[in-house]
Structures are given as C-alpha cells and as structure tokens.
C-alpha cells in the first residue's frame, strides 16, 4: 500500500480509507498527492461547497449536523471538513467537533474529516481546498467546510467555497464584531443561530440594517439573513433553502467564473507554498540569509539583497512566458 496508483484504484472503487489517506497526503504536503489528484480530477466539480464560519460558541457544529441531516433526508450525500486550531506552542490539537455529529458516523452517505490548522495559513487553505477536491471527486453531493473563528485563515478557507455562511448567535456582541472584522463582506448567507434566545431579534435587525447601508451593484447577490435554532432542530430548512437560492443565483456563467478564479487562486497558493518551502527548507536559502545578515545593516537590507537575486530570476521567467491568449492587459 502507499503508491498513488494503488490509492487511486481503491479511491475509485469507493474505499473511504483511500479517500482519507489522500486527504492526509494533502495535509502533509506529501509529494504523491499531485499525481493522485490528477488521476481523479475529472470528477471534481459536481459537489456544492459551503464554507461555514463564525465565532466560537455560535453552534456551527450543531448547525452542520442538522444541515447534514436535512441533506440526507433529501437523499443527498454529504462530506464535512471540520477545521480546528492547532496549539501554537506544541503543534498538537484536540479535534472534537465531530462529537456533535456522532449520529452521522455510520451513515454511508456522510464522511466527516477533522483537520488541524497546523503551521501556515497558506498551507491550511491549500490543504482544505485539496480535501474538498478529493471529497468532491469521491462523489459527495454537498460539502460543508466548518472553521472556528473569524481570522484571516478562516476567511481564506471559506472564500474557497461556492456559498459562504457566517453563523452568529445572540449575546457577546458577535454581530458588532462580525461587522468590524469584515465577515459580512464574505457572507452569502448570514445565519442567526440560537434564535430562541434573548437578543436574537435585535441581532437580526442590526444585520439587516448593516446590509442595507452597503452600496450594492444592481445585479449583485444581496446576502440573506436567516435564523434558526440548530440545537432544537428548528429552522435549519431555511438555511439550506438560502443555500439553494444562492446556488440558483450563481448557476451558469457566474459559477464558471467564480470557480475558475478559485482554481487560479489554488494554483497561486500551491506555487507560493512550494516556492517558500523550496527556498527555505530544501534549497538551503536559510543559510544564505545568515550570510547576508552578517554584512547587511538591517534585516530589511538583507531581504532587499536576497530579493534582488530572486526577482532577477523571476524576471527571467516572465520574459520567457508564452504569449497569453486571454490575459488582461
């Protein structure tokens, strides 16, 4: 076991351990991943990807569990990717979100994978897109990607989705925080969870007001605000309906454009990650850094010198590019 051909054969035969292993390869930056993905990439593109983010305690896992239940009732298969933070000190992580989705464990139409955020933002975003690609290729109809928190890393992950859900709940000033942090700009659907709790009406009206104040292009998507109580299995139908509405809006050219942009972003992310890894870890540029620092007056000066050499090579590459047919001026 272990070669990419074996894995893809098992993957294409529907073996879930093979899917799981491909996700591990993506996470570990394993060199065999690219070849394996290439073998199955013609199957990618059928799933609908929903990114779900929001502050801790908003009830995202519970919501995801309920959404999955409704999708299953409608005979749709579901892949879930639950991202949790790694400890910045030890690198370890407790991945406990799936405990809220326990009743889905033995459902052959559901696959749940936990992913720790590990080192770099770029690496995580890469791996989460890769994980979605292989779950998509495996044949799941709906993909739900859940992250905790409202930072840049989470933003990068969910923005690689077709529909972005921002989940908030009453209390703790989450609404205000969300507006400040720019989450509203990301959201296609705003979900007010725990809507039975005190302060929900206020949060909903605050959000609607904030959305109205935004200038919108006439045919742009106007984010929907929906409320539910996922813990009580109430109102989650409206969340799935809002996703369907957004999906219908995107259908056709808009979707093609959005997905092409996402794929281009993934190329850039992969190149960026690999380039940095090659420079620092594999090609010994860290030693060059020490040499430059020894003679440079400041870190910035050392960086300028290093960049000058690297960029000269980059210019070289750019000069030799094929003339592009569809590129922007």
């Amino acid at each position, binding site marked *: 076991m*272990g070669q990419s051909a074996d894995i893809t054969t*098992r993957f294409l035969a529907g073996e879930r351990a*093979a899917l799981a292993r491909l996700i591990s390869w993506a996470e570990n930056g394993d*060199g065999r991943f690219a070849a394996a993905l290439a073998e199955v990439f013609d199957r990618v593109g059928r799933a609908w990807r929903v990114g779900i983010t929001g502050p801790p305690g908003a009830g995202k896992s519970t919501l995801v569990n309920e959404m999955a239940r409704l999708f299953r009732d409608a005979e749709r298969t579901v892949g879930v990717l639950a991202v949790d933070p790694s*400890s910045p000190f*030890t690198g370890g992580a407790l*991945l*406990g979100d799936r*405990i809220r989705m326990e009743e889905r464990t033995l459902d052959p139409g559901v696959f749940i994978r936990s992913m720790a955020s*590990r080192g770099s933002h770029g690496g995580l975003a890469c791996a989460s897109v890769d994980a979605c690609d292989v779950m998509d290729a495996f044949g799941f109809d709906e993909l739900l990607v859940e992250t905790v928190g409202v930072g840049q890393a989470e933003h990068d992950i969910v923005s690689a989705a077709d529909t972005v859900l921002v989940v908030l709940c009453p209390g703790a000033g989450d609404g205000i925080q969300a507006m400040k942090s720019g989450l509203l700009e990301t959201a296609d659907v705003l979900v007010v969870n725990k809507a039975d709790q005190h302060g929900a009406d206020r949060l909903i009206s605050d959000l609607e007001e904030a959305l109205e104040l935004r200038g919108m292009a006439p045919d742009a998507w106007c984010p929907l605000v929906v409320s539910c109580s996922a813990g009580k299995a109430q109102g989650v139908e409206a969340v799935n309906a809002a996703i369907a509405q957004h999906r219908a809006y995107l259908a056709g050219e808009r979707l093609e454009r959005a997905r092409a942009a996402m794929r281009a972003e993934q190329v850039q992310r992969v190149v960026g990650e690999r380039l940095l890894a090659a420079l620092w870890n594999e090609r010994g540029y860290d030693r060059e850094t020490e040499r430059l620092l020894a003679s440079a007056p400041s870190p910035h000066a050392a960086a300028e010198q290093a960049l000058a050499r690297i960029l000269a090579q980059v210019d070289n590459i750019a000069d030799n590019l094929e003339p592009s047919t569809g590129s922007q001026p």
Partner: protein
Amino acid sequence: MNQRIIRVLVGKPGLDGHDRGAKTVASVLRDRGMEVIYTGLHQTPEMIAEVAAQEDVDVVGLSILSGAHMELFPRVKAELESRGMGHTLLVGGGIIPADDMTALEEGGYARLFGPGSRTEDIANWIDTEMNRRWATEGDN
C-alpha cells in the same frame, strides 16, 4: 512543509461512562504535539473503526473500565481491518487483568496500559513506536 504529525483516535467503546483516563490521556497527547480525535462516550466498535478510517489516524487508543474489553477490543480490530485500516497501531487501557492483557497483546494490540500508568510514559511510547514504524516501514 513536509511534516508528519501523529494522529491518534482516543475512543471509549462500550457503555461505561468513565472518561477521566481517556480525556486526560487525550489532553496529554495533544500537549505532546499529536492531533487527537476524541470520540466521546458509548461508542460501538463499528463507530470507532469508521471514525478511525475517515480520520486516517495512525493510532487507535481505547479506554474501557467496564470489563467488556475481551469482547470489544477484538471487534474494534476486526472492524478496522474490514475498512482497510489493519495497519493502525492499537493501544488500550483501563481495568484489564494481566491474563487478558497478554491475550490482547497476542491478538494484535501493541501495548496495554493498566491503572497507575503514567500518561507521560504512554505519550513517549506512542511517539517512539510511531517514529520507529515510519522509519522502518516508510511513509505509507
């Protein structure tokens, strides 16, 4: 960015609700830099094996204090094998008489930890064993 982090499933098979040991070990393994998936209580062998497969863990650690280990531990192993997860490193802990420990070790459990085991020893052992496996068997 080629990094290998040990992924461990800490599972509670059976009906007993004693999760003190399992949760303490889960926390300690996290602090040792491992990624830990804790299943929660009252899991069937099928559920544990399915989670292990979906999460592609390297190690499955089971804790049981109900006396049902001779029934449940072998079933977890069989369920893992049926899911293509036969390579998983299996460890266990709880109230397990010495004879049963021997029998389980003969049946494919790499190591069993009885009451009074140091969590640090458990973490060290898993760390050493996984690194040994990766060094000798390659990065599969």
